[in-house]
């Protein structure tokens, strides 16, 4: 229907974005009826997301002829931005920005570097940046989930943790059950994506490859490669962040520093 109303590609794109945003707002209205207020957060996230993706699209347009090494700076900047976004899911946790950024750099960064070195990801900026950004974005989501789960588990089990400490356990063992639960919970989306690939969802990258003339079988296999890389990057990120954050919630004298606010 929109195609009959809008003929220019840009106008059509904006109209499609408005329709998708409307669907998201509908969910917010439904949630509001159940006293769950997401309006402000979603509105800011949508406007921010749209502006950011349009800005990146414009930059990519400019960078089409830029040297390949520029990708390294772009991806590094994305990792820092992802660390800053993740931090918000870990309110009150000490050093959350640094832990998130290190973890995303370790998880997504090392997988991008290894896969680029092996030739799984092509080095031209137009391939490396979009594929790398997919890994970073998923690593960011996993990191946010891990930190958020860890934070709520620790706050819900202050008594158990301090009992373990009072019985002579060290800080790491006292929070070990919550580290494990956070790691497992954070990977559920990545595992489900891998499991349902091709059945429940056919990712956009595969459609893009088909449109640009790639052989369907190669496009399908490469899609698996991307999802497996996402899992590897996410898993490594979550592993790193949960290991790093457990040391941050304990003081040097093994006292729990993350506690409910009075």
């Amino acid at each position, binding site marked *: 229907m929109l195609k009959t109303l809008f003929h220019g590609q840009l106008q059509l794109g904006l109209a499609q974005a408005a329709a998708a945003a409307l669907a998201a707002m509908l969910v917010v209205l439904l949630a509001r009826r159940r006293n769950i207020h997401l309006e402000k957060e979603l509105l800011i996230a949508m406007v921010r997301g749209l502006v950011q993706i349009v800005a990146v699209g414009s930059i990519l347009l400019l960078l089409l002829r830029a040297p390949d090494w520029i990708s390294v700076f772009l991806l590094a900047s994305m990792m820092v931005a992802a660390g800053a976004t993740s931090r918000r899911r870990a309110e009150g946790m000490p050093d959350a920005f640094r832990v998130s950024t290190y973890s995303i750099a370790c998880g997504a960064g090392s997988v991008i570097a290894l896969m680029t070195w092996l030739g799984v990801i092509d080095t031209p900026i137009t391939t490396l940046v979009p594929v790398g950004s997919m890994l970073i974005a998923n690593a960011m989501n996993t990191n946010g989930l891990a930190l958020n789960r860890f934070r709520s588990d620790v706050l819900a089990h202050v008594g158990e943790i301090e*009992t373990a400490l*009072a*019985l002579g*356990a060290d800080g790491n063992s006292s929070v070990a059950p919550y580290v494990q639960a956070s790691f497992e919970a954070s990977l559920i989306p990545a595992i489900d994506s891998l499991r349902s690939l091709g059945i429940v969802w056919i990712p956009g990258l595969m459609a893009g490859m088909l449109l640009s003339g790639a052989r369907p079988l190669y496009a399908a296999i490469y899609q698996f490669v991307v999802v497996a890389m996402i899992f590897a990057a996410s898993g490594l990120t979550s592993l790193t962040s949960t290991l790093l954050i457990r040391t941050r919630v304990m*003081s040097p004298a093994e*006292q729990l520093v993350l506690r409910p606010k009075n």
Partner: protein
Amino acid sequence: MSLLGTQRPLHSDAVVLRAEGLGRSVPGKILVADATFDIRRGEALAIVGPSGSGKTSLLRLLNRLDEPTSGTVFLDGTDYRRIAPRDLRRRVGMVSQRPYLFPGTVAENLRFGPLQRGEELPADRVDDLLAGVGLAEYAARNVANLSGGEAQRVSFARTLANAPEVLLLDEPTSALDDDAKAEVEDLIHRVARERGPTCVLVTHDTAQAARLASRALLIEAGRIARDGPPQEVLGA
């Protein structure tokens, strides 16, 4: 049945714990200020005071679950900042208001403390401790099936499994019904009578303090207001 097993402490009047200018404040609030007192080995000390006066805050400073912002504590003459926190907390055990038992069996809970330093608590010691708290034959029971009073007695035995020199008790009966409260009080009384670990009991129940303690500290607004025999401190 002895609660103290083979590691019964010496019968001595030496100072085991000394708080010196001990204090803790958080932004905008003084929790404990300038607390100075000695606790002698085998003594049963009650810390009493109104709600929010800083009783539990003071207790948590004694095993360094919280960090003092001023002063320190000496355990057997050694500044506790020079003792590894894990070793300190083994020596200064704590029973909290709620038992917070770990999922599993009663025996697994009792073995938790010794296991942290690589020691396996022998089965006969588990049985001794459980018999001591009136729960003989409970070793294999799942903690999910215990009543509130039973869970608190397991928590008591779990702390005693570490053979602490000092036992900190943070309102251990406040969440219990009258029968369970009497059982736990009896336990505390026996520990104090056997001159086992030195007991430091936080309670808002002045009658309980008078029943169990040989000395009382009254805390008001984070400061020690009185220190002496329970009848004098509580009756004034």
